[in-house]
Structures are given as C-alpha cells and as structure tokens.
C-alpha cells in the first residue's frame, strides 16, 4: 500500500522524505486502524465535528470540521525546534540536548515512552461504550474528541519509537496495540488503565484527575534532554488541556445540576429526582483522586532519581525552579506514617522526585475543587467538596500499608471497613449513577442529571449537530 503522506498523515517531521519512518508507519497504520475499529468508540457515527491538528502553528493545530471518525487524520507533530536548547538538569546540565537517542539511555528512554504510550490507547478502550449513554450530542462529540486525540498521542509515541528506536522500537509500537485495557492475558501496563469507565460521571472524573496525571507526566518528559521527546510532549500538552476542560466543565455541570435539584426539592436526597447526590460526587472524587495519586509511583524512587540525573525526565517546570537543577546536595520531606500518625521524613531530593511531582499535581487538583465549591456557593448550597488526604485509599507507595481516612487519620482495618462505604462509591451508588445513563441524541437536548454547557464548541451553538449518528 502507498500513502500520500502529507495529506493522509499531517506531520511536521518530513515523513515524505523519511523512508525509515514510512516503512514503519506503513506496516503499523493498518494495525492501528484495525485496532480503532475493534477497540475504539462503539457507537456508529457518520461523522463528528472534530478538531484536527494539521500544523503546529496557532491556526494549524485546531482545525475544525465534520469528519468520519475512521478517516480522522491522525498526524505526527512536534513543537518547533529550539536550536539553542540545552539540557536543563542532571549530570549533563548545560550540554546541548540530544537529537538522537544515546545508546546508554536507549532502554530507559524506550521504557518511559512505552509506558506513556500505553496509557493513550488504554483510555480509548476504557471509554469504548460510553457513547451509548451520552447525555447530549455536545458531550458525545467531546468524548470522541478526547478519543481521537488519545489516538493521536499514541501516534506521537509510536513516531518516537519508530524514528529513534530501530527494530526494538517497532516491536514495542506493535505491542502497544496488542495489549488491551482489562484484557486478562495482555493487560495495559498501569493498573488504573485496566478499569472500565462505566459511566459519564466516571468519565468526567477520569478526564479531570487521571488525564491530569498524564499532563504532569508529559510536563516532566517535556523537560527531557532527548529533544524529539521533549518537543512531542510539548505539543501533546496543548491537546491534553482540552481533555481536562472536558473533565472540569463536566463536573461543573453535574454539581450545578445537583445543586439545582437540591434547591428545587429542598433535600440532599436527590437520587429519586434523577440527580446525583453530592455525597456520591464526593465519593467519586475520593476514588478517582486516590487512584490517580497512585500513578505517580512510590514516594521514594531511585528510578525517578536515575532518570533525573541522566537528563531523561525533569521536574514540572524545571527551568523555572530556583535551585541548582542537579539536586545531589538537596533534601526534601516526604509523607510517612510513623506510630500511627502521618508525619514527614527527610530524604535526598533526588529520591523524592515522584513526591515532588505529586505535590504539584495536588495543588493543581485543588483549583477544580475551588471552582465546584463556587458553583455550590452561587447556587446557595451550604456544602463543600474536598480532596481527601493524600494517604487515603492508596495502593502504591508508603501509604499502601496503612488505612487512612479522608481527613488523614490512621485507622485500623476494622474502622476502615466500617466507614468505607461512606468514603468510596458503593454498589448502590454506582447502580444509581448507571441508572441515570440514558442516551440523549437530539441536538440541543440534555440529560436530566447534568446541566447544559455554557458554550458550544468553536463558537457553535449548543444545539449544533455535533455528531451525525449512523
């Protein structure tokens, strides 16, 4: 088969002039399309109003139009190259960044890219059936937008594997399509990406909390001394912002609708009235937040230290930090449990880099909470949502040995079991949320459990036909 590269695969990596890349993509692309057909969105559509990146410039990266989804033009884009860029941290700080993979770091870089790449298609798989219960065409379109962009992010990682990692890279790119979310034989690498996204509240929570982890991981890879990885991640971050927007505004609208129903019926028990009680929203926050915290890895990590020292993975906004960017002499405090109390321990700053990134993430998550509480306040509801304690419900890191309440108290297993249902979604909660999930495909109409959006996409009205179903 032959591909008209510039038209079929928008790119700024000179695909038309790169035989190596062409050959790799020629054999990979059909497998990708096959994967998209079998593992991608289950709802049949004719076309969807989607944003396509066709260039990296201001106009190019957000090109809107109705497209048939399997004709979506997944492209390969890197942010513009800065020819003077130098390594900002680690042992080789100050040296020019690498345009090729140094053999010494091949295995580590490949691993980082594979792990990042594995999450991208995973979320598409997790969200595969969500379209069947979309609360509006607007939301359905957003779901698909997120899905095609996760697909593009997969392409971005595959591009790096194909262009820089030779045969091993091609094999790993193939394996990204062979592992599938929740597959018993061949699951996705990270646990959180093997859980189904069963309902739209989960979807919004996922895009708010879990995609935000992705944002922070990409942010650290953007600092990488391996320049093609850095530039790829910089461009991906632009798209990631939209995913978080879907999450933030999605939860906004759920909270707004719940507040409205509470006032209308003068009760917190709005389930019988077709709403999602704030208790349930809080439990979903607790769950998704804690699971996402796990994705940052253990508080103490020698891998993270090695990646930093080697220049492979920096800190969030590395270059804005006011320190020596080498960290061999610095210390940091991490949370630990001692004598049944959460306290801190001083460790080498290099060992505590996962903790550092998690702290940045937590601060960012707080902004959503403020926003939703403002929605509640405006609606006159005397109630606030909050982030649970960092040690709550953790399965990875120093807290996994302990049971910690959302407030941060260390408790025994019995106390945990007794209160668990007040903190995490119960079967009854999930069943109720699922019961609300009925599709609304009429333009401009919206399901009863969620408020309408305040604006349409790309200045289109809310009742615009964002999706033409097949």
């Amino acid at each position, binding site marked *: 088969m032959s591909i008209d590269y510039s038209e079929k695969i928008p790119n700024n990596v000179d695909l038309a002039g790169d*035989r*190596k890349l062409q*050959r790799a993509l020629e054999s990979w692309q059909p497998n990708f399309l096959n994967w998209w057909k079998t593992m991608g969105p289950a709802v049949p559509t004719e076309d969807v109003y989607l944003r396509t990146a066709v260039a990296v410039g201001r106009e190019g990266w957000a090109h809107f139009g109705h497209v048939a989804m399997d004709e979506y033009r997944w492209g390969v884009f890197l942010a513009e190259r800065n020819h003077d860029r130098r390594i900002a941290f680690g042992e080789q700080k100050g040296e020019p960044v690498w345009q*090729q*993979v*140094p*053999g*010494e*770091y*091949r*295995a580590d870089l490949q691993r980082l890219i594979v792990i990042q790449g594995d999450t991208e298609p995973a979320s598409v798989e997790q969200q595969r059936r969500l379209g069947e219960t979309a609360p509006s065409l607007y939301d359905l379109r957003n779901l698909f937008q997120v899905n095609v962009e996760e697909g593009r992010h997969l392409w971005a990682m595959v591009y790096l594997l194909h262009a*820089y*990692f*030779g*045969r091993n890279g091609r094999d790993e790119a193939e394996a990204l399509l062979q592992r599938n979310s929740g597959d018993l034989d061949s699951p996705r690498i990270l646990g959180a990406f093997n859980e189904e996204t069963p309902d739209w509240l989960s979807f919004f929570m996922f895009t708010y909390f879990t995609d935000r982890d992705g944002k922070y991981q990409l942010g650290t890879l953007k600092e990488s001394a391996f320049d093609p990885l850095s530039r790829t991640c910089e461009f991906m971050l632009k798209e990631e912002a939209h995913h978080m927007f879907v999450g933030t505004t999605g939860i906004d609208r759920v909270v707004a609708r719940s507040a409205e129903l509470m006032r209308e019926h003068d009760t917190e028990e709005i389930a019988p009235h077709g709403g999602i009680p704030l208790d349930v929203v809080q439990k979903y926050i607790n769950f998704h937040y804690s699971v996402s915290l796990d994705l940052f890895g253990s508080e103490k990590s020698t891998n993270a230290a090695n990646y930093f020292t080697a220049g492979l993975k920096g800190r969030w906004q590395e270059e804005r930090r006011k320190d020596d960017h080498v960290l061999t002499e610095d210390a940091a405090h991490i949370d630990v449990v001692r004598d049944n109390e959460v306290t801190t321990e001083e460790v080498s700053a290099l060992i505590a880099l996962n903790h550092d990134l998690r702290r940045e993430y937590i601060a960012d998550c707080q902004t959503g909470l403020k926003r939703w509480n403002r929605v509640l306040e405006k609606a006159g509801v005397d109630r606030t949502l909050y982030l649970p304690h960092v040690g709550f419900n953790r399965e990875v890191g120093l807290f996994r040995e302990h049971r910690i309440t959302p407030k941060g108290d260390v408790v025994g297993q019995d106390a945990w079991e007794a209160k668990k249902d007040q903190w995490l979604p119960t079967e009854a909660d999930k069943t109720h949320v699922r019961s609300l999930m009925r599709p609304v495909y009429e333009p401009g109409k919206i399901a009863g459990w969620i408020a309408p959006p305040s604006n349409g996409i790309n200045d289109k009205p809310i009742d615009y036909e964002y999706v033409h179903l097949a």
Partner: protein
Amino acid sequence: MTSTADPDRDTVPTVSFDAEPGSYRHWRLDLDGAAETGVAYLRLDIDEDGGLVPGYQLKMNSYDLGVDIELYDATQRLRFTHPEVRAVVLTSAKDRNFCAGANIRMLAGSPHPWKVNFCRFTNETRNGIEDATEHSGQTWIAAVNGTAAGGGYEMALACERIMLIDDNSSAVALPEVPLLGVLPGTGGLTRVTDKRRVRKDRADVFATRSEGLRGKQAVEWRLVDEVVPKRQWDEKVAERAAEAAATSSRPAGATGIELPPLQRTETADGISYRHVRAEFDRAAGLVEITVLGPEGDVPDTVERVHELGADFWPLAMTRELDDLVLRLRANELELGTWVIRTKGDVEDALAFERVIAEHSRDDWLVNEIRHYFKRVLKRFDVTPRSLIALIEPGSCFAGALLELALACDRQYMLDGFLEEDSQEGEPAQIVLTDSNFGVFPMGNGLSRLASRFYGDDSHVAKLRQETGRRIEAVEAMEMGLVTEALDDIDWDDEIRIMLEERASLSPDALTGMEANHRFVGPETMETRIFARLTAWQNWIFVRPNASGPEGALRRYGTGRRAEFDRRRV
C-alpha cells in the same frame, strides 16, 4: 620505605612487541650445529638493567614483559625461520640459577591492568611453546640447571620434558603463595596437576613450601622427569634433545623463511599495516579494525608459497593482526569495543584458503601458518574487549576469515545495500568452509561453530552441508550464523545505538560476561588456566592482602611482614 610505590599511581609505557634475535637483551638463541643435530639452545641470560619500565632490577634471572616479548619472538622464529630445529632446549646462561620468575618489584609496582595483561601474554607464549611441541615437531625440553622458582618453574612446565640438575641445591618451587600472597598464575597450579599429574595433596604441599623440592623427591612427585648429576649434565641434555629430535615430523633439508620487521604506520588515531587497519574512535571508546583480503595472484604451487614467505597474504595478514591485537590490548585500555570488518573478494579469500587446506598436512610452512592463525584467533577469544563483527557488502568473511566474525561476541550483517552505496556488486555474503569445522579450534578444544551451537551437533552437521555456498544475510540469520540481519534503513541507527549502549556498560562486568559466553562446554588445561587460574589470580591481585600497602606483594623484600585481613572470603 615500608612498601613499594603505589602501583596505581604509576604510569606505564607504550609497549612495542617488535623484537629480533640480533637485539635480544635477555636471551641467547644458540643454533650452532642445529643443522646437523636438529637442536637449538635458548638460554635465558637476563640483563638486570634491561627492564621495560624503570624502577626495578631484573635480578636472579627474573623477568618482565620485555623478556617475554623476546621469548615470544624466539618461539615464532624457531617455527618459521628454523625448520631444521626439531628440539629446543630451554635453559639458563646463569650459574646455579635457572629463573626466579616474574620480577616481584615489577609486579608490586604495576597497576592492575598491566599485571593482568602481562600474565595473559606470558600465558599465551607458554601455550605457544606447547603448541610447537604438539604441532610443529619442535619439542621443548627444560634443562633446569639451577633453581627454577615461580614463573621460572612455570616456564619449565610449558616444556614437554623437565630435567633438573642434581647438585643438592637447585630446586623447583612455586613460592608465590607463601612468599607473595598470590598464585603461580602463569599456568603453574594447573600444569602441576593437569599436565604433570601431581597428586593434589602433594601439589598443595609443594605450592606452600617456599623452598620447593629437589633431587629424587622432585622426580618421585613428578615435578620433574629426571635429575642429572652436574658432571653428566651437558651430555644428558644433548642426549634427551637428540631423542626428541629423532621423533620430529619436520622435513629434512627444509629452508626457513625470514620474518622481516612489520611495516606499520602509527598515528594518534590508529595503526595501519598493509593488510590490517585500525582506526581509533576515542570519544566512542572503540576501534574499527578492517582486515583486507588477499590481493594479487594465488600461488599455484607450494614452492611459490615458500618464495613469497612473509609476503604470502595469509601469513602477512596474520602477523599484522597478531601485532595489532597485542598492541591494542597493552596500550589502548579504554578502547573497550573492537568493531571488526573485512574487505576484499570472497573468491580470492577462498582461493588462498584452498592453498592452505591443500598443503597444511604435507608442507611444514603452510602447517605453521595455519597454526599461527589459530593462535591469533585464540588471542581474540581471551581478549577483554567487546568484539563486534560488521558484515557488509564488499566484505570477505569466508572460511578462515569467517572465524574472525565467529570469534566476536556478536555479528551484524547488512541485508541488501546501504542507500548511498551504488547497488552494483553483490550484497554481503559469508561462506562456510572446512576451516570452520575444527581447523582452528578454540582453547576448549571445540570449533567456534561447535561452541556457538554447543549441544546441538545436528545443527553443526547441517551447517556442514552448506560449505562452499554464498550465504546472504537473511539466510545467515536463519542459520544462526549472525546475531541480526539488518537492512539499510535500520543499519546505521541500530549499530550506533548498540555500540553506544555497549560502551555505557561496566567494563569489568562485560569482560566477565564475555569470557563466560565465549567458552562453553568442556574444560581443557588451557581454559582452566585462562578461566579458573587467571580469574582467581586477578581477584587476589585486587585484594588488599596482596596489593594493599600492607599486602604480601607490596611488603615483599621490605623486611616487614604482610598484615593480612584474616577473614576467609
């Protein structure tokens, strides 16, 4: 001074392996009457002030690397230049002193890599002496006319027969353990048990008794073959030599060939010879070695081979490769990866090889060349560098030259052509010949193919059916003859990444890993020397009990006792 200088602070000189009998400082090669008797005398006569490195005197006929470089040269010239020699008497020109072994001040003052490289080279030379006895019809006899201690006795052990003068004072000894806290590492421990068949309890006693053994007891314990009273000495030695010469397979009336000095150009970035080139890439820590295949006419008669002598391509190339390996090992410690290519015409390489195959049984010179190439290949096998063969279009890895690739840790073969090359000519090919099935055995006694496919004789048998045929990359890959067959799109990147990745790994771990992988299967005396004895010795060398400021090696000769860390490890 309580100990000798700190060895790891000293710098070492660049070593040249050039030597020729006219300028030997430490040996006297006596060929008087050899034409009639077939016996040569090689007499050790160390010039005390002739050490290779300043800082020690070579007292008591003790040796350093410079002495062994001359010994190696003598063994080579005896084989190539003196076909009339059928027995070699190794003896001392000093009174009552055969050889005291490696110089202790030299060892104590040498950095670790120098000691290791020195031991490897001396081991190879002693193996070469045994090889001459076994394959050249030149039987070596040690005429131990004075005390032979440590490396001195080890030198004698390399000979087929050991005669000890019975003067009630001359002894053979391995005093390394009791006096120096190290091992008799030049094959001593191994040859005592494996070659001389000394019982292990006696070997234990012998190796811990600094004064050694002499007289009848030395014979009874099999440490020597016979003791001879002083007044019968010369006569008896000549008699034994004559007996050995009589059994030799060497032809009568043969004329040897000269081994002229190698034509070599050295620069900061490489060494080049007529048929072998090495380019250093210091930044990448590697050296690119290219062996050029034969050019010119193939000799049509064996007489023509003799006429060409040292210019005959297989010999010329082997000598150059030998010299290069020795120089790189001694002088270029930081070039940790050797990338090996060949360049030339496959058909020509095969034609030369046919000459060797045809005459190696009936012509002494051709036989010597074959065994010489075998020994040089063995040097690769014990070289502590990562060896990578790159098989590209225009290469001639055929038959004997394919052994070079098979000696490597990995083989990469280009499938097709590199884009920038013209697509004319033929893609890379390798050819199996009989040479790959036992003509050039490794130290473990197996061919490199049999080692590569150890335990899978049927596969080796299958490969045997494929001799003489041109094998291209994909097929070579299927047959297990190369590690990877890469096409032009992948070639540059894969090779670059592989070499960079290799260069980033621990040099010590690589050396250990490679040595383990290269020698599979059965142990021989040779592998036991290079693996067990050497590995233990090198471990002991880095331990403070030997080389620390209070260790036995450093305290030797200072009048102070060594302080040992008494914990057994």
